[in-house]
């Protein structure tokens, strides 16, 4: 692979979202390549989640545009996708990991069905293969095989989050959006989840955009970082650059406010 001839997976151009007169996010531009994990950090209300929703077609941007490279290598604007292409992205090529696993899982059906459902949505009908894939993914996210028929209601918070990740990754997505994936978990459970996410992204070519207010999570998980304040990206770079040599006053404040243990 050479860097020059390899095209980005996703490109945001002047992306903005206004809620009435209030700014959600404004003038955000960046490119993401295959295999990169990009962290979006900033405090509550800085526009991180709005940006993530605009990138992932959960919200229509007020201005700007997102381009995405499909598997056939065509670069398309997300607002110009055909319905079939849109469905393919939402159900197969993308994953979305919510902070609250209850938003990303179906709590009324078994863990196995939660994983199998995404495969069935892309046309898999063979029960044995679906169950095999579900078992394989439960194993990869370190959930015991004998818990496959349990409802996620019977799972702990950390297990639910791992199940949500398995449900998303079973279709072999190329891009995963994560909104505070470790928020609300105990630190010991967080570490295990971070290790899992890192193993799943490293060397697999999978790209991820991770929104987090936790700089330690961003440091361990991401290779690149964008800092948001009042809806704008005020600083970006390699994760260690932004954290060790922050240029902007707000970034310096953010980094210096982290408690040392």
């Amino acid at each position, binding site marked *: 692979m*050479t*860097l020059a001839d390899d095209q980005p997976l996703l490109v945001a151009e002047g992306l903005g979202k206004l809620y009435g007169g209030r700014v959600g996010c404004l003038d955000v531009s960046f490119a993401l*390549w295959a295999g*990169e994990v990009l962290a979006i950090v900033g405090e509550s209300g800085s526009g991180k989640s709005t940006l993530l929703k605009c990138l992932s077609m959960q919200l229509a941007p007020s201005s700007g545009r997102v381009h995405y490279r499909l598997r056939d290598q065509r670069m398309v604007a997300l607002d110009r996708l055909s319905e079939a292409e849109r469905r393919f992205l939402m159900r197969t090529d993308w994953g979305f990991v919510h902070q609250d696993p209850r938003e990303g899982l179906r709590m009324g059906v078994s863990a196995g069905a939660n994983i199998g459902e995404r495969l069935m949505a892309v046309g898999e009908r063979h029960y044995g293969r679906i169950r095999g894939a579900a078992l394989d993914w439960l194993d990869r996210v370190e959930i015991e095989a004998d818990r496959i028929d349990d409802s996620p209601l019977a799972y702990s918070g950390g297990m639910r989050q791992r199940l949500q990740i398995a449900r998303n990754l079973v279709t072999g997505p190329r891009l995963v959006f994560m909104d505070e994936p470790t928020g609300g978990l105990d630190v*010991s459970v967080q*570490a*295990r989840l*971070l*290790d899992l996410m*890192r193993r799943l992204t*490293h*060397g697999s070519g999978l790209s991820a955009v991770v929104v987090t207010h936790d700089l330690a999570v961003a*440091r*361990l998980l991401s*290779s*690149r970082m964008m800092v948001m304040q009042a809806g704008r990206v005020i600083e*970006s*770079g*390699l994760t*260690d*650059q932004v954290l*060790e*040599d922050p*240029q*902007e*006053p707000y970034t*310096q*404040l953010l980094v*210096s406010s982290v408690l040392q243990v």
Partner: protein
Amino acid sequence: MTISKLLAITNLCKTFRLHIQGGVEIAVFNGLELTLARGEVLAVTGPSGTGKSSLLKLIYGTYRAGAGRIEVVHRGSVIDIATATPRLIGDIRRHTIGSVTQFLRAIPGVPTLDIVAEPLLERGEDAAKAKARAGGLLERLAIPPRLWHLSPVTFSGGEQQRVNIARGFAARAPILLLDEPTASLDPANRERVLAMIAEASAAGTAIIGIFHDAAARNQVATRTLALTSPP
């Protein structure tokens, strides 16, 4: 930059501006010049606060240069780290510049062997071979196999440092940055690390190191750069 050099620094300037402490400015470098050839071991010396670690971080791309050029030979081309994109710097770190920092940074729960093998996996090497090389380095640095599958988070300072050294040497990068690699080691381990540095140098690796221990420095350095406080 001539072809025998792996690294050439020209007119490097760096000033830190501390916005939240009244906008205080700390000048670290003002026109630093440096070249490094294959096989050289350059020891950076100078009192605390003269920018020894900062120099390593500027070369690694962790600190952003204020002005000047930091050119490295990367995959056959000369690249200026001072102006390279984050993505290109990432590629340079995977293939051209290795680094051993003073402190190990690891996700709790990740086994030692995986941490050491990671730089090899990141450049796409086969998992079994990567782990074999990682194990060989750990063995050489006297980390017993019974510890390889444990997280180094609970290891002693000296053990963590040796894990960090094994990780830094794993990828056999043409340029290696070492920040106090022998600082918390006992004499036997110190000798092991110095032998590894000498071997890497003999094999052509260009090394820049900070060694507070003068005896260690004299044993491996082929050249010295003495930093002084900027006026």
